[in-house]
Every structure is written in structure tokens, then in C-alpha cells.
């Protein structure tokens, strides 16, 4: 029989019962009621310069420090450039890469391995890519994965059906492997939905929106969890700072306005 304290606890934010993957980003874990539900595929979306890459690297880094292997699939930047531009986190250690706790792969290497030569992928190519990413996740024993970015991969998909297949295939495969993933989506200021093609957000288990907000001439970096299956979460907007101590978050002040 549950004690009253246990009952209260189970009724509080985020206690739906799913095992959580602690992002290690204190403020975000608090917003998510204890972290991302394990095996979920999350769309991390936002305009340029909002901190998507930094946040996802920190997610992998905290995982590696706590013993969970991480895999970073880069579509847009070579590994060395990515590391050179990374915030010099207090908790970053080069040996995490050398020991295989963090693996960085340039997606062009996967394309070469698969023999992709066309500008546009066929449906069969999409299936092959999902299988290849699954193999890589198994090989590296990755419990955390980042794809940076799905938007860049999608440039090689000429129909929404292919993108849907890719997202669904990835989500199913990663969930089956026990991997929690952040899939980065690049938006422009003109986009009205949370992703470039609209398909990504519908298929993902969660959507975290990062943005730039101007208030009286000041530009603030913001973060808001739009959806997260498997947990109760805050839907408020937070202001963030990307610091060497990690990503810091505080509530956005509203000053009595909406």
C-alpha cells in the first residue's frame, strides 16, 4: 500500500512512471519532471544561434560522464570544427572521446559506406540509411544519440513520404535499441510550424523549441518544451545562458504582460 507521501510524489510533475534519461542540464531536467522519458526521440528545433548544437553536445557529454555512450551524427560540420567551437565546459574531458564514450561521425562517411551517389535518396535508400544508423548505434553501444541536423538530411529527400519514413524508421529503431535521441531541426524566422517540413514534429515523441526573443532591444535566448510524451512537463518559456558551467535556465520574466 502506498504511503500518502508516495501518493503525493506519484501525482507530481513528471511521475507518470516512465524511466527518465537525465539530460544533466539541471534546469531542463526540472522542466521535464526528471528528464526525457527513456528511448524517446525528441525534436530539438529553433533558428540559428539559439544553442541547439551546444545543448545537444552537453546532453551527450553529461551522459558520457555518467557512463552512457553517446553518438553524434553531424551532417553540417566536421568533427574537429565542432569540437573547436564547443563551449569549454568545466566537465569536458578529451578522454571521453578517446575511450569511445562519445563518438562523432560525419554522415558523409555513412553515405560513402552505403554507396549513395545520387543527389536525392530513394525510399530504399531511406530504409538503408535507417539500418546503417541502427548498426552504428549498436556498434558504439550508444544510449544517447544526436542527429545534427534532420533538416540537412531532408534536403536529399524529395517527398514528405520519405521524410516521414526516415523519422518513423529512426524513432522505432532507436527506441528498440534503448537509445534516447535528440534530432535537431533548423527553422527560419518565416517558418510557422516547429520544423521545416512539418512532418518531423508530428512524428517525434517530444518537441523542444529554442528561440531568440527580443524585448525592448535586448535579445534573449529562450527554451520551451512544446510536447513530451510520457511525462508531465512545464510549458513555460525559459531564458537560457550557454556557460562553461553548462546550460543555465531561469523563467522568462513577463512583467505582468502576456
Amino acid at each position, binding site marked *: 500500500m502506498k504511503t500518502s507521501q508516495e501518493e503525493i510524489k506519484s501525482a507530481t510533475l513528471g511521475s507518470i512512471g516512465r524511466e527518465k534519461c537525465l539530460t544533466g542540464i539541471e534546469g531542463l531536467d526540472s522542466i521535464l519532471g526528471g528528464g526525457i522519458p527513456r528511448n524517446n526521440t525528441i525534436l530539438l528545433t529553433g533558428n540559428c544561434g539559439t544553442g541547439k548544437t551546444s545543448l545537444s553536445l552537453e546532453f551527450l557529454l553529461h551522459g558520457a560522464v555518467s557512463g552512457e555512450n553517446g553518438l553524434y551524427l553531424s551532417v553540417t560540420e566536421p568533427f574537429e570544427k565542432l569540437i573547436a567551437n564547443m563551449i569549454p565546459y568545466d566537465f569536458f574531458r578529451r578522454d571521453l572521446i578517446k575511450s569511445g564514450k562519445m563518438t562523432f561521425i560525419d554522415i558523409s562517411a555513412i553515405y560513402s559506406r552505403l554507396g549513395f551517389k545520387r543527389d536525392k535518396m530513394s525510399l530504399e535508400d531511406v530504409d538503408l540509411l535507417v539500418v546503417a544508423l541502427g548498426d552504428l548505434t549498436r556498434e558504439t553501444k550508444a544510449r544517447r544519440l544526436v542527429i545534427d541536423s534532420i533538416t540537412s538530411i531532408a534536403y536529399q529527400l524529395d517527398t514528405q513520404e520519405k521524410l516521414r519514413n526516415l523519422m518513423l524508421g529512426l524513432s522505432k529503431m532507436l527506441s528498440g535499441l534503448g537509445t534516447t535521441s535528440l534530432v535537431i531541426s533548423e527553422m527560419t524566422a518565416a517558418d510557422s510550424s516547429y520544423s521545416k517540413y512539418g512532418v518531423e514534429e508530428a512524428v517525434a515523441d517530444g518537441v523542444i523549441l529554442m528561440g531568440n526573443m527580443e*524585448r*525592448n*532591444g*535586448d535579445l*534573449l535566448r529562450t527554451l520551451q518544451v512544446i510536447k513530451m510524451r510520457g511525462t508531465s512537463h512545464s510549458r513555460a518559456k525559459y*531564458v*537560457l*545562458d550557454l*556557460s562553461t*558551467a*553548462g546550460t*543555465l535556465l*531561469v*523563467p*522568462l*520574466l*513577463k*512583467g*505582468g504582460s502576456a
Partner: protein
Amino acid sequence: MIDVSVQVAGEMQKLEPSTSTSLEIGTEVYFDAIKGMLNHRNKNMQIIYVASTVPAEAIINAMKMIGVDTSHVRFIDCISSMMTGQHGSPENVILIESPTMLENIMLKVEFVRRKSPDKTVLVIVDSINTLHIHNDWKIMGEFLHIMVNGLRSRGAMILMLSINEQQTQEVSTLLGLVSDKTIRYGGD
């Protein structure tokens, strides 16, 4: 004549974790009060000084002239960048672009707090009046409420300075809402 710096230093010794204190001072004792606050040395305490009245470097230099070492204090300077376009700063000074970026004050306080995980944190806000010049009372109230309670929950001590001669009813009300105790010196 009573030395305000000695009295303020004495009050500093009495501060307890998770408390918020309002320090109302007259302009004539402003630097004496700062001397009393910054002269307080405790190796297990991290002092974070939010400077929005006078630039951090001016405080550091003024204290240096009267023999007060401020190297153990981390300053969060909200005005130098906006007023002088200053970008570089001494090692113990963090610049914030504008005093209107109240969230950034909270973020930088949290940053310094994380860098000193084993120390008790004392946050000095200098001053509520000058922050109020740049921000309306609604957002100021929200800021103080969130920051003070967030710091309290982490065992920090908060000391909020206000200047008697510049005191408005709005500032008094705000301070009354978030302070456990009020101390007054000068400005009579």
C-alpha cells in the same frame, strides 16, 4: 561618530542562510556601507556583488584606495557595457549588456554559484532603486520574487541595497514583500 562600515560589517556577521535582508542607506554613507559589506571575509563564503549603481571597476578602485581587497568578490556589472561600451573586464567582473536584462542577472548569479559549489553564497544587489530606473515595478517584483526565493531555496543569503533619498513607495513595497529584515543607516 558612528562608523557605518563597522556597523554594516557587524550586521553581515549576523546574516543567516536562506534569508533576505533589505539594507536602506543614505547617500552619504554609500561607500561606507560597501566597505562594511566587502570587508567581510569568510573563506567559506562567495560574495556576489550585482553592481547597477556604480560600475564594478569604480567600486574596486574606490575600495582599493581605502585598503579593502575585493579580489574575493565576484562582480556582476550591469551598467558598464551599456554606458561605456566596455567589453573587457577584470577577472572577477562579469559584464551584463544592460540592467534591463534581469534574467541575465539571475543566470550570472547562478553561474558564479555553480563555480563555488562548496561555499555559502551571499548576493548583494546594489541597488534596487537603480534597477527600478531601467525596469518597471511589475517586472522588478517578478525578478526579486523569483531570484530571492530561488536563492533562499539554495541556502544563499541576499542583501538588497536601496537609497533612502531615492526611495519610492513602489520600491518599499517590493522590498517589504521579499525581505525578512530591514536595516537602516543614514539618510535622516
